[in-house]
């Protein structure tokens, strides 16, 4: 079969137009983790929904976002924490530089978590919204994604790792790995290729 043509030859002849993804605007919201910023297409968090998948609680999921929360609250922007699984420890958050006067904690039943998060995102008065929904299907996450888009807010959803197999409309999906060391796998990122290697997080105690 002579129909087989080498791809490189075609590209060199410039007879083929190669589509590219729309360029992602450069990072306005750095994560505070230089290694992670380097692999993310926006150079930081997208102003959209980010999903963080955990093997268990207490593996560094807050450390991932605390530098961002510290930066936002020090700029007097509001951060809302919806239905946290434990009580945020004021002294601990403060050690990470978070100004607790700009952190609002919302207590919500499991069926109201998504509603509360959507309200916060749509209001456009919150810089970041963190939530721990118990049940969130594809449809609910899509609503959050749209709300985050319209409110220009950072939305973080923390879920168990078993949800990794389900498709998700989130703009960014990160999976945390605790052993043998704390590492972050980028499982999906809109506007760029998924990096093949995980990013190590150096976990300081405070």
């Amino acid at each position, binding site marked *: 079969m002579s129909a087989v043509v080498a791809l490189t030859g075609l590209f060199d002849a410039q007879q083929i137009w190669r589509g590219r993804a729309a360029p992602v605007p450069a990072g306005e919201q750095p994560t505070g983790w230089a290694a992670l910023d380097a692999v993310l297409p926006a150079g930081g968090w997208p102003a959209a929904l980010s999903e963080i998948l955990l*093997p268990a609680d207490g593996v560094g999921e807050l450390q991932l976002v605390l530098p961002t929360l510290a930066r936002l609250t020090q700029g007097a922007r509001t951060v809302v924490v919806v239905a946290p699984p*434990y*009580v945020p420890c004021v002294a601990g958050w403060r050690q990470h530089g978070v100004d607790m006067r700009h952190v609002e904690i919302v207590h919500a039943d499991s069926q109201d978590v998504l509603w509360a998060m959507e309200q916060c995102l749509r209001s*456009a008065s919150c810089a970041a919204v963190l939530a721990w929904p118990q049940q969130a299907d594809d449809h609910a996450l899509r609503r959050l994604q749209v709300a985050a888009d319209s409110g220009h807010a950072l939305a973080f959803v923390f879920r168990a790792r078993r949800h990794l197999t389900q498709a998700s409309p989130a703009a960014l999906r990160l999976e945390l790995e605790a052993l043998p060391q704390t590492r972050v796998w980028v499982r999906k990122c809109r506007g760029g290729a998924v990096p093949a290697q995980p990013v190590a997080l150096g976990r300081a105690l405070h």
Partner: protein
Amino acid sequence: MLWACVLLPHLALDGVLRHRPDDGPLVLVAGSANARTLVAVNTAAREAGLRVGQRLIAAQALLAHFEVLPYDKAATERWQRFLAAVAYRYSSEVSLLPHALVLEISRSMGLFGPWPRLAAMLRVDFDALGFRQRIAVAPTAHAAWVLAGIGDGQAVLTNAALRPALQRVSVRKSHLPDAATEALPGMGIRTLGQLLSLPRDGLRRRFGTELLTVLDRLIGDQPAGLVAWRPPDTFDLRIELTHEVENLGALIFPLRRMTSDLAVYLAGRDGGVQRFVLQLEHRDRPPTAVVVGLLAPERDAGMLFELARGRLEQIRLPGPVLGMRLLARDLPPFVPAGRDLFDERPAHALPIEQLRERLRARLGDQAVYQLGSTTDPRPELAQTVAAGADATHERHPRPSWLFARPLPLRGAPPRILAGPERLETGWWDGGEVCRDYYVIETSLGQRAWAFCAPGEQSGWMLHGWFA
């Protein structure tokens, strides 16, 4: 001095129509049972030939079906006071005259702009509330009242122009004492110009000093002698529904009107409301009270409505509702939130206070809070639900998640990363603790804040995650 007069020719009817759709002929009647007379007719009734002053029997002969409501003097006066509160935002000197409000505006114009602009603002406000009005301005309150009575939009801005403007006004429309109004045309005195040129001495002998006082007030030779209206310190608005309402949906329309009236009243008073009560009145049982409490004083109409609606939708009606009453006693001063010129948030952003109220309306009063620290070293008591200033920086590692109560650690023995930090405290109130705190890593790779009895390193109790 410059007085604006807002004449309210259809006050009673407009007040009734605010809480019901204006469809079909409707009349207000007054008088004794066997001589009922029409005192107000709406557009549909007027087109059918009904007139103010007609006997009810004559009207019934003209038109087969129309709605008849009694003229409620108390309600009409309440509306007039409510509108005085609206006008109060434009002047600190507002007085009530029959079917009219007068306000002193010579100083207000410095703030709100020249008369045409101020008049337009007044018209927008009254139109928005659904009250038809005629507006006039003159150097005296009574002259403004008289001018508003003969035509809308009359403006006499200087003292010199006042007499010429009043020359041609009929004495019938000059709000003179009744005896004079009846007698003067018989004497050939038909206009104010003729009356004002008569010698005062003769007028006093014939009509007494009352007429002279009225004329002096009209011209400005005597102060107006009006009692200045004072805004009340509570807001109390009650409406009667036209029929028994059994589902909450039908209460939304009157509720919107009531909350927007409250907002208008608050704006006029430059105050806010922090707590108000909606009372739903039933026939045989005590009213259902819906309490709407806010974190901070507010006065935005949309926000008040949304909050009241959120609270209202949560209740279950014990029976049909006959009337609604909105009662606000807490009217603290209101300080509008300042917005930073260089605010990064988008222009359509909902203020954080409103977001907080919206969340509280659905999730409960205690659902939205901030955490602050106390000076107590015990982890259970080191923080409290209150916005607090930044306290001292803790030198020892503290977790980011704290457990509501410590949990025993099961499974393989943990790896110790840091510690111990001994906490031996609380002896003063009986809640004494003596613990060694460590940072440990579990077999799953979780980092925890855990304690055990002093010097033991076993029997671990988890107290938080370094998440």
